[in-house]
């Protein structure tokens, strides 16, 4: 019994990429260490994702460079699933727009780039009956290009807008017989940009802060058509398409209390997964089985984070951070005909930061880590019998920032 299970698990392929790494783990070292909160208190490049309104807190200019990696330990039916680890380089810039007069200290911009070391977007679309983790692990293999603008309207009210961008692919292959009857082919492909809006608003009074951030649906598709009619295959052009990346519509409501060295944040993130209905389309409309619906349902993620800063001298300090979040799975248990696997995820997060002012230059370094437990779950395997699946995910990152 063990051997077939192992064989099956070996055949499992680390699967497509639905939702982005910033959606999975949070964005930026401070947010990622505090349970992926941040809509209320961030003031660096990570605000382009969490809440662009917070960019209005930027003072001067800050450059951040870093590196993040994620490792997966997934199991299916008692056997490990091969899953490629992911890593990415981080580049972030924030700057106050130094207008004068009534606009002084009101506007800030931010740019964030998370560039995977291997790819920009990874897409693996398998047959629906093949057991496959739907939302992990290739999700980390996705570029994040984000920019935003924040404005301080006064009276504690801030607003911001931004965008996040991805890439998709359109291609066409035409197979035919040439004048001599020999097979010939033509090929054309185009990488296209896809983007989604981000908007946010926050309000603060005394130590209390509340924020609402919206992130739009981000879909990157890979659409390749193959027309083989010229070779005598009597079917319409094949539509070999699939969704490479999918971030659902999201609305995050966050409240925080920040006084002195302490910051405490709680957040709820609603995710509209039910709009993501199909991973793929029929290979040939009318001449292929209709791929099953994902039957995802909307979810609400609960997040919490805390931070404590110690000023060692008037020019140096350290900060400790911790947090957690619980992300329920949007996917129903798998069936024999729909092998989409996903688990509820409980993540524990922590981080440490140090800062120093040397001369007139402020430096900071941030370390953070996350441990995600994919809570064990039971479903129907491809052979119709019950199977269990789950695992863990580890994330670690570090960044260095300089104000200049």
């Amino acid at each position, binding site marked *: 019994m063990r051997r077939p299970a192992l064989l099956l698990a070996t055949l499992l392929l680390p699967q497509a990429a639905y939702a982005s790494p910033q959606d999975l783990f949070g964005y930026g070292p401070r947010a990622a260490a505090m349970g992926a909160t941040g809509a209320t208190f961030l003031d660096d490049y990570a605000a382009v994702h969490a809440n662009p309104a917070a960019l209005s807190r930027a003072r001067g200019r800050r450059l951040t460079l870093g590196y993040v990696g994620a490792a997966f330990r997934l199991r299916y039916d008692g056997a490990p699933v091969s899953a490629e680890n992911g890593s990415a380089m981080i580049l972030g810039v924030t700057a106050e727009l130094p207008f004068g007069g009534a606009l002084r200290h009101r506007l800030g911009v931010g740019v964030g780039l998370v560039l995977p070391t291997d790819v920009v977007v990874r897409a693996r679309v398998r047959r629906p009956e093949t057991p496959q983790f739907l939302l992990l692990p290739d999700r980390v293999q996705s*570029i994040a290009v984000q920019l935003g603008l924040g404005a301080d309207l006064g009276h504690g009210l801030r607003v911001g807008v931004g965008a996040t961008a991805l890439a998709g692919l359109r291609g066409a292959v035409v197979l035919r017989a040439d004048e001599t009857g020999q097979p010939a082919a033509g090929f054309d492909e*185009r*990488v296209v940009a896809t983007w989604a809006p981000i908007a946010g608003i926050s309000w603060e009074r005394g130590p209390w802060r509340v924020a609402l951030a919206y992130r739009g649906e981000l879909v990157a598709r890979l659409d390749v058509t193959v027309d083989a009619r010229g070779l*005598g295959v009597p079917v319409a052009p094949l539509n070999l398409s699939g969704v*490479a990346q999918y971030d659902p519509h999201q609305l995050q409501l966050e409240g925080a209390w920040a006084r002195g060295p302490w910051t405490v944040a709680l957040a709820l993130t609603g995710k509209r997964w039910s709009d993501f209905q199909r991973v793929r389309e029929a290979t040939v409309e009318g001449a292929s089985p209709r791929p099953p619906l994902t039957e995802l349902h909307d979810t609400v993620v609960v997040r919490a984070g805390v931070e404590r800063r110690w000023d060692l001298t008037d020019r140096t300090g350290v900060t400790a951070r911790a947090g957690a979040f619980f992300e329920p799975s949007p996917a129903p248990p798998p069936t024999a005909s729909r092998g989409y696997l996903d688990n509820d995820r409980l993540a524990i997060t922590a981080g440490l930061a140090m800062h120093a002012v040397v001369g007139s230059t402020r430096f900071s370094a941030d370390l953070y880590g996350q441990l995600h437990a994919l809570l064990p779950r039971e479903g129907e395997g491809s052979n119709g019998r019950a199977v269990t699946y789950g695992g863990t995910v580890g994330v670690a990152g570090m960044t260095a920032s300089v104000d200049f």
Partner: protein
Amino acid sequence: MRAMSLRCNVIAVVLGALAGASGARANPLDMYGFGPRGASLAGAVGADVADTSAVYYNPAGLGRLRGLRVDLGYQYAAPTLRTDRRDNGVEATRGILGGIAAPGRVFGVPMAIGIAFHIPDAGLSQSPAPAASQPRWALYGARLQRAYVATALTIAPVRWLRLAAGFALTVGTAGGVAAEGRVSTTHPATSALSHTLDADLTAARYAQLGAQADLGRGVSVGVTYRDAFVMEVGVDASLRGQLVEGPAEDPRSPATPFAYALRARTMAAFQPRQVAMSAAWQINPRWRAGIDLTWSQWSRYEDPSAPRAALRLYDTLTPRFGLSYDAPLGRHAVALRAGYFWDPTPVPAQTGATTLIDSNRHGFSVGVGAVLRRLGAALPGSLSVDAFAALHLLRPRATRKLDPTDPVGDFIASGHVLATGVNLSVGFE
């Protein structure tokens, strides 16, 4: 073909390396310039560029900035390229471009960081793979539909010297698609095909380095290095299954296996290693002249579909000249600019099986700019508007094939490109 398929028990056809030809300029900036100021001065700005286009022309120029700067513009280039006076319908290049640059100090040393981009309207990249023998304009068309995103960091260790390093990235693809199942030749609606898709959009990064030095008396010199990169695109497509006479779901229907496999490999983009030596002379407060000489190592170009000996490109030297006149209008200013470059073609005479079309290029450009300073308490810096227009003339070039039966035959190539663009900048000096 269908009759042949049905007669065979197994049909296995491998469509070998498909095309793979002719990647050339990796981005439209090498061809048309980045932004109105640089384009109107024919690219002769490497020694004194001082806006976000420095990320492309010479990242050391970011060190000249005295405040945060944001640029946003649009650029358009329409080629009219002909063979034997017939327009070849080469695609126009248009796209949004811009950047942000922020100067500051670390340990008292001036530094700056800049990010610049050019995003074509047609997408982030385009990689057609025509047949290897198909004549094509080597440096134009779809090959110029490629995004450019770059960043650079500059320091000024001493007052007269600026040093910079950065990288640019571009996007390609690698992967495969596969479909399999039963296809009914008599009842197509009963066919059952399914597919898988395994693809990566990949990123290529290449280094950009720059230096600028002020020699006094208004003279500046600069050197820029852009590394080479090759972006190969690969797509594997396979189609296999059974051709069925009768309902596909009926196991009794006579079936004939079939299998097709396609391996497409194309060089989507090739950028030659480039070194540009630049000089600029601020003759007086109004007049400024610039010169630039760019060496491009085209000889490293390899066409995957042609033997290297058959298609060995030449390295080129491109001289560029620019002249500008700044006229103060109170605290504001206007600028008039003009430039010229000569870009020799790297493509040798195409007398054999390959037919890359290109010709020496003369580029003439003019531009105008206005700088509005201190527009009020809210904007203590400046607001700039710039525009340019350029005409690139491709000298007529005759191609004579050695083989009189060559299907392409002899022809004369010629053409021109009209380019224009505008840019709006906000500077917080």
